[in-house]
């Protein structure tokens, strides 16, 4: 029941924020309180969890006529992602305290509902409900971009919506296909995992699932929606997109493809690794050529998500652990960079690397934090990103050394774009002439929290790996050598 409460918290928080908006800053406080309560409840659930595969489970019949149930289950992987969701939620509220003026009630409701829908994705094991949340998260995040974005926001939001909704139909079709294979009407993933399917059938269904996951992960060539959506979204929208929505794709691949289609994963894996390697290289190279800081970070997201895809596709213990760590690490670093670029834009009204620079003199706090996250971007040892990428490369070496070399080469590219970003914003000649106020506590606090998370996971990775271990074991398709 705790899981239902966990899910209902942001749903109700959003409704409340929408209804009471307009009285001072009430909606901001309500949303903040919602996310803090969510985080506390999650910590409570995890702390009081029995030492089993699932920390908590609920199974309620919803529409028995169609075999649809509300099956929520929480393990370390889900818990870690939900924890990130709650923290990012808090950060989003703080980051948009001044940025969002109009319709702030609806804005905060959309924040809450985006988080609520991703929570549903991270916990649901009824595939129809999972597919429902998958589609449901698009609507509030669409609004975040379309209403409070910059420039051609509606175009970018529409692109985001169409890409992801169409891919979502692929998921829905595959879910229906899979459910129709069972001898009775059910969408329960645990039951559906038990039915024996021929390998070609598994491959087809897996392709349906993967279409949705790949588009959400924005693996090239399915990435076209991402750069614009990320660039034109408001800061909070970019944070949620990068930190949370992209992770739903990784989560889906991680969780459901080995669970439902073990034979197909073995067949498809080499293609997945190759696609990931190509995507990582492509994303990294394009990022090197960007002058818009936000667009640059958006392309690094493509590169990093492609690396995650490689890790998941490799399917060995090291690589899966690396993928799990890299998912979190990317949430921390990309969200923090979007947060800080948002702060930068609020002050200078520019994100162009050619107009910026030299902030280490005027804004030391900004410069320090920015430097930490740029080093995370290039996977400097000591950051969580290093642990993730190193483990993934090690894992891929066990599978195929050619792909591992490709993965390594992307790390070289990451050094180029990360230093370019760092130099363009923080070092060099100060080209922005106006006064530049250093980060306020509202911006610095979240940045510090994310930096701490990056460093803690980077220096003591077992803290995270231990938590997601059971999920990794379940996702292993072949025993590690």
């Amino acid at each position, binding site marked *: 029941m705790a899981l239902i409460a966990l899910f209902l918290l942001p749903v109700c928080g959003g409704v409340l924020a929408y209804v009471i908006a307009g009285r001072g800053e009430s909606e901001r406080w309500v949303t903040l309180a919602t996310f803090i309560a969510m985080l506390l409840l999650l910590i409570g659930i995890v702390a009081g969890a029995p030492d089993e595969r699932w920390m908590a489970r609920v199974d309620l019949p*919803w529409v028995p006529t169609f075999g649809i149930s509300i099956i929520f289950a929480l393990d370390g992987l889900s818990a870690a992602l939900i924890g990130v969701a709650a923290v990012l939620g808090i950060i989003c509220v703080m980051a948009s305290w001044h940025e969002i003026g109009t319709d702030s009630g609806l804005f905060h409701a959309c924040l809450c509902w985006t988080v609520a829908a991703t929570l549903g994705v991270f916990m649901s094991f009824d595939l129809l409900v999972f597919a429902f949340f998958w589609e449901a998260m698009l609507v509030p995040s669409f609004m975040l971009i379309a209403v409070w974005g910059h420039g051609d926001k509606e175009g970018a939001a529409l692109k985001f919506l169409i890409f992801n909704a169409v891919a979502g139909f692929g998921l829905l079709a595959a879910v229906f296909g899979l459910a129709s294979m069972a001898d009775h009407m059910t969408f329960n993933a645990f039951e559906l995992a038990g039915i024996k399917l021929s390998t070609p059938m598994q491959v087809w269904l897996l392709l349906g699932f993967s279409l949705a996951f790949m588009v959400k992960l924005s693996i090239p060539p399915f990435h076209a929606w991402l750069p614009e959506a990320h660039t034109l979204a408001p800061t909070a929208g970019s944070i949620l997109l990068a930190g949370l929505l992209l992770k739903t794709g990784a989560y889906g691949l991680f969780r459901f493809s080995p669970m439902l289609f073990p034979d197909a994963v073995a067949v498809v894996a080499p293609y997945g690794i190759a696609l990931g390697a190509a995507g990582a290289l492509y994303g990294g190279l394009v990022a090197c050529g960007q002058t818009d800081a936000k667009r640059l970070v958006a392309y690094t997201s493509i590169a990093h998500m492609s690396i995650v895809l490689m890790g998941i596709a490799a399917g060995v213990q090291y690589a899966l652990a690396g993928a799990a760590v890299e998912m979190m690490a990317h949430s921390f670093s990309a969200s923090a960079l979007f947060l800080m670029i948002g702060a930068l834009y609020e002050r200078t009204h520019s994100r162009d690397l050619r107009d910026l620079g030299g902030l280490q003199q005027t804004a030391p706090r900004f410069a320090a934090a920015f430097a930490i996250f740029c080093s995370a971007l290039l996977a400097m040892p000591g950051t969580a990103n290093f642990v993730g990428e190193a483990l993934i490369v090690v894992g891929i070496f066990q599978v195929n050394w050619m792909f591992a070399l490709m993965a390594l080469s992307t790390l070289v590219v990451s050094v180029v774009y990360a230093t370019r970003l760092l130099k363009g914003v923080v070092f060099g000649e100060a080209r922005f002439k106006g006064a530049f106020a250093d980060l306020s506590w509202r911006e610095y606090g979240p940045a510090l929290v994310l930096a701490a998370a990056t460093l803690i996971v980077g220096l003591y990775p077992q803290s995270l790996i231990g938590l997601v271990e059971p999920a990794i074991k379940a996702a292993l398709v072949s025993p590690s050598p």
Partner: protein
Amino acid sequence: MTAAQLVALSPLIALGLGAVLAMMLAPLPNATAARAAAAGGMGIATLLVMLRTGAPVAAVDSLFVDDGLARFGTGFASLTCLGALLYLRVGVAAKEAPALVALVALGASALAGAGHAATLFVGLEIVSLALIALFAFPLSRPALEAGYKYLVMSGLASSALLLGMAMIFADTGSLSFSGWSGQRPLFALGAALLLAGIAFKFSLAPFHMWTPDVFEGAPAGTAALAGVVSKAAVAIALLRIAGEAKMPEPLWRDGLAALGAASILIGNLLALRQQLLPRMLGYSTIAHSGYIAVILATGVPFAGEAVLFYLAVYAPALIGALCGSALFGTAPTLSDLRGLARRRPVEAMALSTALLSLAGLPAAGGFIAKLYLFRALVVTEAWTLLIVVVIGSSLGFYYYACFILAPFLGAASAEPPHSRRPDRALLMVCALVIVLFGVAPMLLIDLVQTVLPGR
């Protein structure tokens, strides 16, 4: 006529008395009395139906059957007519309007219990004639056009219907549905004509031409009567025919399937580029008729359950959408709706909920209705129809999404017209019912299952 038969007919009697009383009160300077009389009739009918839930099946000769299906139809018609009456606005002249709405409810109730061709015809005619008057009442050009179109096409359909019934009678010697069986050519021809006549009332393509004009031109509220009440009554009549008569196959089912598929494609395609909300709803209602017809055509054992569920979630969605449309001006366009969420956040959200249900998206009852449809098609392995439905629904997602999202996008437009409290209340109730059926569909599924005969 025995007392038991009178009791069985009591909801219809209440509706009829309400209509007569409303007609007599119409000349009074204040329209409230007539409204109250009609509403009272419909309210009492609803209550009587609820009281009679679970009572044994009673037949009034062979003309009228009082079973769960009929009770469901009567309660459904009374409730939806009550909702439509609430936001009915027809110029100053039309004090007779409440009486006409009560007549629509009466006709629909008769249809729901029709076990005989005579009742079927009389029920259809009561509904159609009352609707013609309601459509034309504002006497404006679009309203007259809507009324006139409906009149002409309704006349055509009625003659087809009568001719079909005559042929069936000539062949089978029976006007009762239960006596209809066979495969002879005359019977088949009669059945085809009957189907064409019914398809008109059901706004199935290619007999759909009147629908968008009615939705655009007729007064707010009457479109809901045409789109929900008459459609539901006809669907229930079709269910009963499928249950009691042995229609010539494959003509009957294939005909229904073809009409349904055509409606899905034509309705959704034509709705795609509509800028006027009510006109879009007019085309979408054609598509929804198509979905229902397709369910009926599959003939699956749970077809009745599926159709009743579909109707029950469709009613609040269409009424809510039309009511929302009336709230934001007589015929709001897509650009009129932009930015409305800033002025009327709650109403905009409710309107979007109604449209969400029409699109068949989750969290709204329409989603479960779509699941029924898909299940029926998968179970019967009707792959062609499935593809048609998938194409239609995908098109639907697009145009509904435009209207769902419009109120939340763009700058705040001019102040929308003043909204009356009953309208707002009705819209809220519809939105809540939609969400309730979407979140807890078993409530409705259980109800529908108890209503159906043979369970």
